[in-house]
């Protein structure tokens, strides 16, 4: 089963994403902040990480950098979840090592398509 880690501090956003992922038959794991996320990627082999870029304490960009600097985790594709207010920052995230980005609010019609696209890569 495809394993996806969702890093998101807003519980409602989290629920929506997890609900969607499970309805498509993925195995999803929740991490409500960066520290938890970094522990989890070490414990389990994830096929994909959905990473909210605006996190409390440790920011999304920091989490991304640590994942990409670590030999053990650097090959996991990371998709940045970006807020409306971050329009224009997407390029920065791609340069920092994101496989792609998805802007919030999430368009559920394209959600599966996008996820599957990154999983194939």
């Amino acid at each position, binding site marked *: 089963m495809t394993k996806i880690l969702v890093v998101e501090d*807003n519980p*409602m*956003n989290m629920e*929506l994403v997890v*609900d*969607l992922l499970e*309805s498509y038959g993925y195995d999803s794991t929740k991490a409500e902040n960066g520290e938890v996320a970094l522990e989890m990627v070490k414990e389990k082999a994830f096929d994909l990480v959905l990473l909210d870029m605006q996190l409390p304490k440790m920011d999304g960009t920091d989490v991304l950098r640590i994942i990409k600097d670590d030999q053990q985790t650097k090959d996991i594709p990371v998709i940045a979840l970006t*807020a*409306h*207010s971050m329009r224009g920052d997407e390029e920065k995230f791609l340069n920092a090592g994101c496989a792609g980005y998805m802007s*919030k*609010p*999430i368009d*559920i*019609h394209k959600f599966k398509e996008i996820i599957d696209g990154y999983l194939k890569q």
Partner: protein
Amino acid sequence: MNEKSLPKILIIDDEPYNVSLMEAYLSLDYDTTGVLSGEDALEMIKTDDFDLVILDIMMPGLSGYEVCKILKNDVKTKFIPVIMATALFEKGDQIRSIEAGADDFLSKPVDQIELKTRVRSLIKVKRLSDNLISERDQAQRYLDIAGVIMVVIDPDQKVSLINRRGCEVLGRSEEEVVGKNWFEVSLPISEQQQTKDVFDNLMSGNGSEYEYNENQIVIKNGDLRVISWQNRIINDDHGNITGVLSSGEDVTEERCAKKELEHSNELKDLFIDILRHDMLNTAGVVKGFTEVLLKRVTDDPQLEMLRTIKRNNIKMIGLIQNAARFAKLESIDHLQLQSINLCPILNEVVDSFSKELDKKQMNIEMIGGDSCQAMVDPVIEEVFFNFISNAIKYGPEKSTIRIEGVDSDDKWVISVCDQGEGISGADKSLIFERFIRVNKTNIKGTGLGLAIVKRIMDLHEGEFGVKDNPEGKGSVFWVSVKKA
């Protein structure tokens, strides 16, 4: 003393003959008045301004000494020169005369030349002293007229002068301030010592010659006022520091207004932040769950309700995004314009609406060349986005939207023409004004789209407007921008 009229002399002697004689000697050059007693003299002086008094010492009733003392002790008359006249001038008389305040002596019988010489020189002195007093009064008047506080502080920190405005602000009379320690009179106790130290440092010649500062003063009723000061050290002819002249302006209201403005700006920023982050995210979550439900629910009436929720939710997201965008545009006051071809932008915007256009089976007709190079900011895209979005929203199904770029001298006029219901004459000028709706509740809202258009065009210093479709139903929304 009026320069043109004759100087006025009051002659007092209990001997009528003496009065007549002196009047005879002086009346050619002076306006003389004679009285026969000290009491009469004091009455006269109350009602008339004299420039000189000639006073006999030995008189029944009030003596010359007594009259002189009274005159010299009265602020109103103390500057009138007094000549004491007596038949017997002994050393004791002279001392008593000086003690009484007399300015000169004259022995009787009066010698005409001596009289005229003494009178002339004392009148000259009086004239100079009058000029001095009037100059001083004039200077004081200027200080009093001044709308700023003027205060002179001597090296001992005492106030040697304060003008009317200064007294007004402090709520104190001149007497309550002059001669008192300025810092103790005007500053909150907690700040007195520090300010005194700065002042002493200034007095000892350290620190710059000009000093600007702003501080709070305590006025009589205990209130605090913020004063903006400009201070200047006063030096005497030898370069010694003799004090500080400070002019101060009461800026309490300005400072308060500034604080309030800052507060309301902070509040505005906070609301924008809430809009862009918290509200938008929450509305997005509603959207997500609604869409999930729309995929799962099969019951028709429930589906219909979910569609209504979705429609309103999308509208709400649009409003929040527009409000945030509008607020952001309001906070910008300058755009860095660059040469951009408008045609690809228009094409992209049209493409982004392909789904909506298909849904209403509407056509887009693009007229004009494929190069409209203009001086714009990329934000201009939102103008076209709003125009085309409105045209789709208000145009009927299967109608055509015409987008046109027209070459007009040094400008490009870009217009979007729909076949909707059109906009009535009166509303044409109001439709771009978001703020009018804030005050007038009866104007139907059209969202923020056109207010955003207006703001963007104002920032471009470009023109914009709406007119009726000349070829039938509908409106033409247009903007003009400078060619590159």
